């Protein structure tokens, strides 16, 4: 089998993976870095992020404010030592990006501009119009081209981690162009594989967000943490799920029901604020979990607007005026017109909550290290955890940078600590076995199941039972169904048994990842008998700090459902309190 040897191999070349690669190349130009990605780096889903990246920069702001907003926004499930590190590094990372040439939007005096975002008490979201993630990704990708020590393997799909003596040793990947399996030997591996929103049918997430990175670690024995916390973004286009960024509301857009009422005031986020003058951390600038939940409540009351794609509310931006919409939200306007036929300059846009982000992911400590020696993780696939039970918008892009770099430094420290390379025999045996499993899937005949069929059933199960509000009955049903789907997955037969760019095969592998992630979501949700942040149980409506101020850990079992364990949350200075988004309190 063709083999590539590297000091550090990175799986994923989105924001997190590129940041990690650059940090390694800068720290030691002699390091051999392999950057492996199933898509060309600039196709990674970081490109879709619109609103911006949070970091304290302005004089009226402080690290304490960012800390409090993040921890409260996360309903006290965030690890506070990790949040502390995060907010401290955040401004440095954003300035670093500036120095690499990111085209941040500017104030008249030439300093970087910031905008308001949901759940943030101060304006601290750096932005590049409404294509912030796109610019961050392209700035990182183009910057990475100056480092010869970063060797890229574009369109290589990682399939399994290799291990020896309880340490990571590398992984196997399919070269998509040839269909050949390649072995990557590396003493340290960093997983930056992105999120898993595609386990749901209606999502802002692109086709590539199938949880592969999470599944790679999970199957190698690393727990997935807090998987039950799935973020719904309140404002997706009902037709396609395309996101209209929170910056729409940051700039002053408002949400109304069918009676024209700004209904958020009826759900603890009032009193109503003046039109066109948004007030931070209240009404439309409340946190995403609360706003999405308010939508659901209004929908139960019949206050929403029926559309051919389901119920919607209206996002009204007309009062912002054409000039401001064009300057600050050009993509939003373009997409509303293209995909909904509605121009936000002249009409309110129908929107509804849409699956957006996984707060959970690969269990790491605050140095981005997993419990498996040599394995690190960063970005959306990881759970450090700074986001707790509900991520604040614009914390994620910053997280990619801060922990992408942190993972790189930790990998360096790990190498310097004298970590041994794995033996050739262990690597060869592991890789051959991985290739054997792949061949078996590719050549299998007589299977009764199809990729598309199982995927549809999985998505339907998740939508019906693991959405904004959950119950014991629904989750229990989902768990049974997902276990069954995992079993039936073994009977998949591919239609395409050829080698070159076989997307039937790749989608089958992605489905395998998604089923594992989906089951972890459902099992953790079933076991968490409380409501916190994005995890809302109709049968356990209150937060229960006595029993559940803890992270869930799902531990993989190849033949059965995962075992669920718990880990205490790190609390350093902020005791769990009330999340207050009523604008009246100050």
């Amino acid at each position, binding site marked *: 089998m063709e083999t590539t040897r590297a000091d550090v191999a990175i799986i994923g070349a989105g924001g997190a993976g590129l940041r990690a690669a650059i940090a390694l190349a800068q720290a030691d130009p002699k390091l051999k870095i392999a950057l492996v990605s199933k*898509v060309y780096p600039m196709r990674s889903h970081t490109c879709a992020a619109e609103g911006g990246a949070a970091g304290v920069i302005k004089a009226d702001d402080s690290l304490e404010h960012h800390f409090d907003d993040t921890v409260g926004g996360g309903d006290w499930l965030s690890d506070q030592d990790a949040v502390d590190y995060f907010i401290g590094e955040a401004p440095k990372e954003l300035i670093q990006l500036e120095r690499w040439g990111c*085209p941040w939007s500017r104030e008249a*005096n030439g300093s970087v501009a910031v905008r308001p975002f949901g759940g943030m008490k101060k304006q601290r979201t750096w932005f590049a119009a409404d294509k912030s993630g*796109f610019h961050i990704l392209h700035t990182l990708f183009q910057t990475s081209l100056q480092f010869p020590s970063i060797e890229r393997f574009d369109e290589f799909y990682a399939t399994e981690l290799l291990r020896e003596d309880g340490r990571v040793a590398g992984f196997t990947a399919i070269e998509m*162009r040839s269909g050949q399996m390649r072995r990557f030997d590396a003493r340290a591996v960093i997983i930056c594989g992105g999120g898993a929103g595609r386990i749901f049918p209606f999502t802002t997430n692109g086709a590539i967000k199938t949880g592969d990175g999470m599944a790679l670690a999970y199957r190698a024995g690393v727990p997935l943490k807090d998987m039950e916390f799935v973020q719904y973004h309140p404002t997706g286009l009902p037709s396609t799920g395309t996101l209209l960024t929170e910056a729409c509301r940051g700039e002053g857009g408002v949400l109304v029901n069918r009676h024209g009422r700004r209904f958020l005031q009826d759900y603890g986020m009032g009193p109503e604020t003046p039109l066109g003058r948004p007030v931070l951390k209240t009404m439309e600038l409340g946190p995403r979990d609360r706003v999405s939940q308010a939508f659901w409540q209004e929908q139960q009351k019949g206050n929403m607007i029926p559309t051919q794609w389901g119920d919607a509310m209206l996002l009204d931006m007309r009062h912002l005026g054409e000039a401001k919409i064009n300057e600050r939200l050009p993509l939003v306007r373009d997409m509303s017109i293209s995909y909904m036929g509605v121009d936000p300059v002249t009409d309110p846009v129908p929107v509804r909550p849409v699956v957006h982000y996984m707060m959970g992911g690969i269990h790491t400590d605050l140095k981005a290290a997993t419990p498996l020696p040599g394995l690190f993780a960063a970005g959306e696939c990881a759970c450090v955890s700074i986001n707790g039970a509900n991520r604040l918008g614009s914390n994620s892009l910053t997280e990619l940078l801060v922990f992408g770099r942190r993972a790189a430094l930790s990998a360096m420290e790990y190498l310097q600590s004298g970590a041994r390379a794995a033996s050739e025999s262990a690597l060869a045996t592991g890789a051959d076995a991985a290739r054997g499993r792949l061949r078996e899937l590719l050549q299998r005949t007589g299977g009764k199941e199809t990729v598309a069929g199982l995927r549809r059933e999985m998505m339907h199960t998740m939508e019906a039972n693991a959405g904004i509000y959950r119950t014991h009955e629904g989750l229990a049903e989902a768990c049974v169904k997902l276990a069954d789907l995992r079993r039936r997955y073994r009977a998949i037969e591919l*239609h395409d048994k050829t080698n070159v760019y076989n*997307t039937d095969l790749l989608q089958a592998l992605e489905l395998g990842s998604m089923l594992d992630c989906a089951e972890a979501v459902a099992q953790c949700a079933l076991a968490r008998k409380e409501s916190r942040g994005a995890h809302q149980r109709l049968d356990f409506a209150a937060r229960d700090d006595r029993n559940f101020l803890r992270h869930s850990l799902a531990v993989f079992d190849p033949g059965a459902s995962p075992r669920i364990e718990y880990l205490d949350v790190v609390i350093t200075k902020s005791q769990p309190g009330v999340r207050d988004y009523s604008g009246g309190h100050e």
Partner: protein
Amino acid sequence: MGERTVEFEVLRYNPEKDAAPHFQRYSVKCREEWVVLDALNHIKESVDPTLSYRWSCHMAVCGSCGMMVNGEPKLACKSFLRDYPGLIRVEPLRHFPVERDLVTVIDDFVAKLARVKPFLIPQPGAAQAGTGEYAQTPAQLKRYKQFTLCINCMLCYAACPEYGLIPEYIGPAVIALGHRWNEDSRDGGRAQRQEELAATNGVWDCSFVGACSEVCPEHVDPAAAIQQVKIKSTIDWYTEHLMPWLNK
């Protein structure tokens, strides 16, 4: 809820099975609001799982789904069925080798992009000047902002007759991206990039047809970038050869 049956003719090529590319017909029920990509996804899911193509974001920023739609370079996620009353013919992007079905080999573009050093090369002296942010006014940002919007979809390469004739030509998007950095007030790397931009297969290969800007889904206007680079390179030449004292 409008639905209609749409006829597709999709180019198929599997190097392991096919001696040559051929067209395959699909007749599928489509919703009126769909884009071509939705129809391809529907075909892949319900009709023919062997069809291969690239896509991810479905919002015209990842740049994956460039293909020829009725002979024009388009993003499949932004080609609305309502704009195509009859048969829709879908082919891989022109001027690129076909890897499989609608998937092209894009090594050439990726290699060329690296050659123009598309990253910030600090101005001499400025590099160590501090670790804080550079100041940049909105007006300075505006000078290059449009050229940062390139999503690397390569539609402009498929539209460019010169690239079809001279494969060595570095092409519209790469020039626009090189120019983007030259025009950035924080950058000092123009002289280095000029080696590629003004070289034999740089801007001078362009005969200014302007097709690149017409097909660009992001309004980058690479033709404008090419024109600006040409003008500036000409000025360079004059200052060097006719007014050498200016260089002193």
